């Protein structure tokens, strides 16, 4: 299953473009100190200068270098996205598998909480929580996101677990006396890898978007260098009405690019997990199916 996923990913054009975009952003974020000499937080030029040879993407209202803030901000967005995404997926997957496999009372309790969290509106609640905490740092935002957004993953994982728990290989593992945690970790989990992957990428997208939104709305820590704070500061400086498009469109473009890269990857994983969704050359698709053993004639 894992092997099919990886060979599928390398052969899928959407996945390839998505991976290239994400890899590019990660490399730029990691190499940020090498790519620019400017400190992202300090004043290094005159306010609101348009893009030039000195400042590739211009300067902000208070004279910070936009390019430096962009590539340093990428670190924050990626860290929050992947950190919160990991937490969301870990919680959702664990709860989903336990509820689905154990059944009975355990399932009832977990499902009740899952459904409860699902019906409470998420973004408004996050806004209120963030405002109560006051000037939430990226770490705090990631933790809040992790603990409030696992419900969707838990529900989907539970449903998938239910559909495979009566398969023969699980029964035989039970017969051989494997402990339950081992069955859940090593028999069920690897078979859910595509749903876990979709959940993970989806959660990363959600976390990045939500962090940027919360910061744009002014609920973040003003000292943070991140794409959301760039949007907030640009909006506060009326960048649009004074014509400083570089100030506000730069983080916009970066967020859109990262979102698109991750979504392409997500759609590709979905297509590999669900072969009917695939499009493209019919012959290629057919041979790929035969090779992966999915194509039954």
């Amino acid at each position, binding site marked *: 299953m894992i092997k099919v996923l990886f060979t599928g990913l390398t052969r899928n054009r959407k996945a390839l473009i998505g991976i290239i975009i994400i890899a590019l952003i990660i490399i730029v974020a990691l190499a940020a100190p090498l790519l620019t000499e400017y400190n992202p937080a300090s004043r290094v030029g005159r306010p609101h200068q348009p893009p030039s040879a000195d400042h590739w993407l211009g300067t902000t209202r208070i004279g910070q270098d936009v390019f430096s803030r962009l590539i340093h901000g990428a670190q924050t967005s990626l860290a929050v996205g992947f950190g919160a995404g990991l937490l969301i997926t870990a919680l959702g997957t664990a709860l989903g598998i336990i509820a689905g496999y154990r059944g009975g009372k355990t399932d009832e309790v977990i499902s*009740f909480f899952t*459904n*409860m969290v699902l*019906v*409470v*509106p998420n*973004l*408004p*609640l996050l*806004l*209120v929580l963030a*405002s*109560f905490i006051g000037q939430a740092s990226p770490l705090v935002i990631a933790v809040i996101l992790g603990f409030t957004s696992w419900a969707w993953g838990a529900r989907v994982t539970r449903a998938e677990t239910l559909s495979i728990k009566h398969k023969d290989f699980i029964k035989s593992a039970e017969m051989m006396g494997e402990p339950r945690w081992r069955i859940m970790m090593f028999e069920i989990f690897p078979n859910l890898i595509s749903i876990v992957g979709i959940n993970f990428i989806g959660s990363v*997208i959600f976390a*990045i*978007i939500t962090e*940027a*939104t919360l910061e*744009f*709305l*002014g*609920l973040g820590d003003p000292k943070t260098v991140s794409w959301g704070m760039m*949007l907030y500061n640009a*909006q506060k400086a009326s960048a*649009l*009405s004074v*014509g400083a*498009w570089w100030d*506000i*469109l730069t983080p*916009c473009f970066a*967020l*859109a690019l990262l*979102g*698109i890269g*991750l*979504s*392409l990857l997500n*759609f590709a994983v*979905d297509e590999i997990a*669900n072969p*009917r*969704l695939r*499009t*493209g050359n*019919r012959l290629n698709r057919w041979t790929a199916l035969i090779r992966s053993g999915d194509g039954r004639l």
Partner: protein
Amino acid sequence: MAFLIRRFGFYLAAFVAAATINFFLPRLMPGDPIQIMFSSAGAELSPENLDALKLTFGFVDGPLWHQYLTYLQSIFTGDLGRSIKYFPLSVTSVLGNALIWTVGLMGTATLVSFTLGTFLGVLAAWRRGSVFDIVVSVGAIFATSVPAVVTSLIVLFFFGFTLGWFPTGYAADPSLDPSFSLTYIGSLIYHGILPMLTLCTVLTGGFAVTMRNNMINLLGEDYIVMGRAKGLSDSRVMLWYAARNALLPTVSSLAIAIGTVLGGSLVTEVVFNYPGLGNILYQAILARDYPVIQGQLLIMTIAMLVANFIVDVSYVLLDPRLRGTS
């Protein structure tokens, strides 16, 4: 029927849980919330009003359970207290005014996006792999993966500032009095176009992808092959055999979308300075106007619960298989 009763019980429990979270949130804050509110309201609150304020939060003298019951009672009697920011006004009237704008804007945007998205999804699935499908699928991926903040700002920048075609804020020209005159309605539409465009861009893609994927899964079913083998026309198989059944899961996403109408357009409303519920919530958060925040959270929870219950009912009505098993 037993199924529906069980679901109703669950929603009632969920509502009480949400109300409880609402009750404890201001209590978990550092400091005395009433004092914080009192100081942020300035001199506008008289001591009698302070007492009234305490009452709506259940900050009455007595043990915690007594406070909690007082609070629950004020919820179920529909008394949400008074706003701090817009002081003499009650929370109900502040939210009521904003509700009209949000329902008008988001409601229309949701229905337009649903219709458009479903239609595009059906056609894309039917011509899977064609140029049309690729344009729709890739467009949907782009539109759904770009954050609403970004879409709003870009739309505002190009159409509002650079081209200057549309106004950059407010629901209507502030110099006009609300009336049913042509000028006022024209101004409403003129001001509504940009937020509407943003919301439709954000929402349509999701509906299109859901519909397309449902359709494609169904197109492999035997009864579709049977329909074709019978020699039925393409459009008949597409609309009456495939689309009709593929619509069922989409109905649930529509209902959920309607459930989130009351809170879903927060970012767009803030960017376009639209006087809807999302903007009111945002302003309330900035001003620490807890009565309004609590009222708004409650209203949104109720909307979500009602929408979910409608999904359950519609499933029982639309899918005969559920009727037998319940």
